[in-house]
């Protein structure tokens, strides 16, 4: 009897495993339409941030273009990387976009097996003839946020700020993906005011809002009145601290201005929706070749600041004009913002060991040589 039950259990388990493994990926519809699969990254749909933004681009593409789209969700997009990518390719999709950064290695490995499928990966570069890499200029968008912060922090007659030229930024972890934001921010701030003090710190966590709040309060004590958060869920605490003590926070990735109206100065947008829509449009019309790197910057509306719905009317309007002017200069190539991801380790060390305007000057001098 006991034996039978065990067998039965084992059978159930096996069925469950097979079912979860195979039911994941619906096959592309056998039509002439161009078909697109979008592999959702960790965090899943409903994160009101990265994945949802990409999904919005996908939905828009389905509505506006002659394409079939399918989002592919997995409970473990990291562990199931290869299976997800292979199944999507074998199901006959013309374009497979993955939002998962960790697919960089498996994608490079399996892409040669499916030469007729075009792949695209976001935030990472995979050098294969049938892979398109989608990258963002986080540094230029963050530069504008830094410039605006430097202007606002010494503005007279603003309740949210003190006279001291001190601002801050809190990163999730010390990694190039986060540092590209922080050092873009530093550059923008130092170009407006070379005497500004920019406090940088890492929470070492993307999901601890309590810690984010404490860190923001510690910065506020040091007279920082604008704090840029690049720390995912930890950032919710930064915004909460700004609301409690009435200073400014700056949001990231999606428009977070509404989270604390009047205390979120702006958000540094990373328009994954724009990039996904654009990639699909270009691929469907046959304009997009594999092996290319698509760079989404200010000009493509891939990055940038929000409309500042709640703060535009409280800060001096010349600040907004000045930031717009900087934006034009970057777009025209008159102003170059350093992307720390392309620096050599020893070059980056110059500024990361001395993350101040002086350190930045040293780096610029070293790069000019």
């Amino acid at each position, binding site marked *: 009897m006991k034996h039978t039950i065990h067998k039965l259990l084992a059978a159930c388990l096996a069925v469950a495993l097979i079912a979860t493994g195979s039911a994941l990926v619906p096959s592309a519809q056998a039509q002439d339409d161009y078909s697109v699969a979008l592999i959702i990254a960790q965090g899943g749909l409903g994160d009101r941030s990265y994945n949802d933004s990409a999904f919005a681009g996908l939905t828009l593409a389905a509505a506006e273009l002659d394409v079939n789209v399918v989002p592919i969700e997995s409970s473990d997009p990291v562990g199931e990387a290869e299976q997800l990518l292979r199944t999507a390719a074998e199901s006959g999709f013309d374009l497979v976009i993955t939002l998962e950064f960790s697919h960089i290695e498996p994608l490079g490995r399996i892409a040669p097996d499916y030469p007729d499928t075009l792949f695209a990966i976001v935030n990472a570069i995979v050098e294969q003839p049938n892979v398109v890499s989608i990258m963002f200029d986080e540094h230029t968008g963050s530069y504008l946020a830094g410039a605006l912060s430097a202007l606002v922090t010494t503005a007279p007659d603003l309740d949210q700020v003190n006279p001291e030229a001190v601002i801050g930024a809190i990163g999730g972890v010390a990694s190039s993906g986060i540092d590209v934001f922080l050092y873009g921010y530093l550059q923008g701030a130092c170009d407006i005011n070379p005497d500004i003090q920019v406090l940088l710190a890492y929470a070492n966590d993307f999901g601890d809002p309590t810690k984010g709040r404490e860190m923001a309060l510690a910065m506020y004590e040091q007279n920082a009145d604008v704090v840029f958060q690049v720390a995912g*869920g930890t950032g919710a605490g930064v915004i909460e601290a700004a609301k409690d003590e009435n200073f400014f926070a700056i949001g990231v990735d999606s428009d977070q201005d509404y989270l604390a109206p009047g205390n979120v100065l702006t958000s540094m947008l990373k328009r994954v929706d724009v990039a996904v829509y654009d990639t699909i449009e270009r691929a469907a019309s046959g304009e997009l070749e594999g092996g290319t790197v698509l760079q989404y910057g200010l000009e493509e509306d891939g990055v940038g600041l929000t409309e500042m719905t709640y703060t535009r009317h409280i800060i001096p309007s010349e600040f907004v004009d000045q930031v717009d002017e900087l934006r034009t200069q970057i777009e025209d190539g008159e102003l170059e913002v350093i992307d720390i991801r392309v620096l050599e380790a020893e070059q980056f060390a110059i500024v990361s060991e001395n993350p101040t305007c002086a350190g930045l000057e040293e780096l610029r001098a070293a790069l000019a040589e």
Partner: protein
Amino acid sequence: MDIVSLLDATLRISAPLILVGMAGLLSYQVGLINIALEGMMLSGAFAAVVFGYELGSTWLGVLMAIVVGAALGALFALAVITLRANLIVAGLALNFLATGGTAYLMDILYNQSGTLAPEGLRKLPAVTIPLLEDIPVLGEMLSGHSPLVYVSWVMVPLTSIFLYRMVVGGHIRAVGEHPEAAQTAGISVQGMQYLALILGGMLCGLAGAHLSVGDLPLFRERMTNDRGFIALAAVYFAAARPRLTAVACLLFGFFEALQFRLQLRDTALPNEFLQMLPYLMVVIALVVISVRKEWRKGW
């Protein structure tokens, strides 16, 4: 550096640790290793937000967090005491259940993932203590905290009184020290273990509520971030003595508050070292305490 605000932050950071620490030492005293503190705390944090929002009162949310904590404590007790499940495995299971369960419920109830910050949910009002708040340094430091910070302070002497001055506390300690002897003396071993785990669950619920509605009005997946384990470590190093456990939690809070501030200064120390500092200092401090004690006894 502003010492007052440093100590102020210390008190905020250590409050949830102290509450969980008291929970951990209760189960330690009854002879059980409770690694499920983390999961109970996370469930409490979630319950406080959900019920606080649904019932329209944050205080009712806190109450429900305590109820949920007690229920999980009872469930854990049922598994490990009555059904004799392995303590560590059952504890791990409860932690996984809490992590996955809160994320799942958030998804099906509110169609949200990551962060749950329902519109209209308010955090607990800060408590200003009359007279005390007017005293310059002390007032700034001690007044104006979230109410559960004060609850955490009260819990330390209460736990001490409960364990060392009350009959039932004596029974709990007897069970922990020598279950067979306690049983012979007519004490219900299982009863005491149930009691300790349920009381611990309530304290965990309270600690979770402090995280989600004490200083912030929001729940975040895995927001407890291993605080349950830090508190457990404090309990072990302090050999489950209430005051010493609280001191260990305060020490951790102090160095955490300090490292946030040191990161903002130009120190020669790398950030990674600073982030390790709170953990390191707790270990060092407790080793010193323990060595001194042994020294006095004569080796």
